[in-house]
């Protein structure tokens, strides 16, 4: 039983990272209606920006560097949308073409990371943490901070969506873009802001992943992306709250399974849940008709 609770604790940490990433992806999908296959590379790039601010240039505290790194990724996401993805999306009605462009963007970012930072594993400049016993869990202070950041981000996203005009405009656009425009919503501006938020959340997720894993690699682009997809699809594509719930489910399931089976099957567990969801509830476990 002790092993279960330990795994549960790790599961909460993974779910925290996953929730930030899944909400960012879901926000962007809800507005643009196409999947960004470069999202994992946004995470990796955000983590490297944080690394640069923490270990290469300004030597900032990792938590401050994380804010800077995430915001840089947010701004870069806006530029990617403005100069690359947006024009393609406007020009071609079929989202298939834009998907191919996001694949291309993924490769460009990945190779840019390799050429700037190399293929070696990097580590943030931060203290080695002692493990704390909290009830049945064994967690580090950094892991607790990551969980707190995730909870705060989810609350902020919830408050933004529910109580501000910006959030309601995003939900309106996600629901019916034409009607949103007819109601006076500047959909281009909302799209730009959404890309900024999505990029920032991707950068944040990549950075906190680096903190919890203890190292920074370009791997999120290749591996973590598919776990994020699983969380988003299990929760219900385009539903922000579904993405949060899907992240918790996938995060817990993968870590708890690792405690009882071989840990290298973690990804497979995520995919089994994904396949079962698609078989029995193709709209996702928490989706209502419509989106977000």
């Amino acid at each position, binding site marked *: 039983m002790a092993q279960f609770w330990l795994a549960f604790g790790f599961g909460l940490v993974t779910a925290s990272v996953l929730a930030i990433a899944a909400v960012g992806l879901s926000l962007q999908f809800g507005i643009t209606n196409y999947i960004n296959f470069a999202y994992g590379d946004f995470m990796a790039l955000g983590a490297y920006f944080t690394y640069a601010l923490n270990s290469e240039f300004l030597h900032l505290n990792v938590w401050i560097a994380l804010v800077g790194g995430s915001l840089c990724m947010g701004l870069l996401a806006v530029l990617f949308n403005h100069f690359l993805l947006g024009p393609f999306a406007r020009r071609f009605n079929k989202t298939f073409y834009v998907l191919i462009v996001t694949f291309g963007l993924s490769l460009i970012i990945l190779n840019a990371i390799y050429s700037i930072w190399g293929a070696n594993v990097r580590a943030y400049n931060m203290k080695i943490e002692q493990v704390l016993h909290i009830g049945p869990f064994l967690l580090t202070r950094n892991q607790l901070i990551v969980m707190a950041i995730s909870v705060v981000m989810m609350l902020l996203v919830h408050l*933004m969506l529910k*109580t*501000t*005009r*910006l959030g*309601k*405009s995003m*939900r*309106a656009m*996600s*629901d*019916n873009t*034409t*009607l*949103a*425009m*007819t*109601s*006076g*919503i*500047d*959909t281009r*501006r909302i799209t730009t*802001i959404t890309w*900024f938020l999505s990029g920032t959340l991707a950068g944040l997720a990549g950075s906190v992943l680096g903190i919890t894993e203890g190292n920074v690699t370009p791997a999120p682009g290749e591996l973590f992306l598919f776990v994020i997809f699983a969380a988003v699809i299990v929760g219900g594509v385009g539903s922000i709250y579904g993405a949060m719930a899907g992240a918790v489910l996938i995060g817990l399931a993968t870590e708890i399974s690792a405690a009882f089976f071989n840990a290298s099957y973690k990804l497979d567990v995520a995919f089994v849940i994904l396949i079962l969801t698609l078989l029995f509830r193709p709209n996702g476990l928490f989706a*209502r*008709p*419509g*989106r*977000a």
Partner: protein
Amino acid sequence: MTTRDEMNSPVDQVNEPILRCQDITKSFLGVNAVNGATFDVPKGKITALIGPNGAGKTTVVNIISGAMKCDSGTVHMGSTDVTNWERYKIARLGLMRTFQLSRELGGLTVLENLLVAPKVQAGESLFNIFFRPRLLKREERQNIERATEILRTYGLYELRDSLARELSGGQKKLLEISRGVMASPSLFLLDEPMAGVNPALIERIGGYILDMKRQGMTVLMIEHNLNVVEKICDNVIVLAEGRTLATGRLSELRANPEVVQAYLGEIINAGPHN
């Protein structure tokens, strides 16, 4: 409902146009849907746009509201040339519209459907969200108060927390109209507001449209129900084959042989309910 004539004073009879359409043309695959439509919509009045099926009424409304680009011609709102503007810009200038088949933001609650309507809000800015929360709170409170008042007027208050997609057809129609009213438009385009609506609701919607006029809004409505047009509209524009056939009071148009031949004849022949 009060009728149009009880509300008009003699001074109101001549009025400046809030909307001016000149020589609008639009063709689809070589077929002319609109072929030089030219008309004015007087400010503060209720104007009906009538005509046989295929006359180009909805296409004209789509062009005015920015949902469609015209091939030639101009659309002016007041002194501003809004020809082929993006629809959100036209909406922000004060033009709201409804659709033949009512449309709603289904995933938002009834109240939220109204809260997205006001034209420019401080809550649209990320900066304000983080650095001016008090301003946002005040704005949100004011918007909720106004939306609540409108929902009470339109009989939707009890449904304020329901998702819009769960409403009945008539309720969706009312929601669409109340969302437009929430934006306090200077010009409100209604595309067949009485279509598919039961007689009791027709009476109510007619009353709401007259209320809009009392509040200073201008209404341009596509309508086939001539009883309603007769009762509430100050002015009528007749379109046929994409052209403006005639304008005036419905009583005057009934005496116009061209109008009778192109449209009113078939309506009169169709029976007393039209």
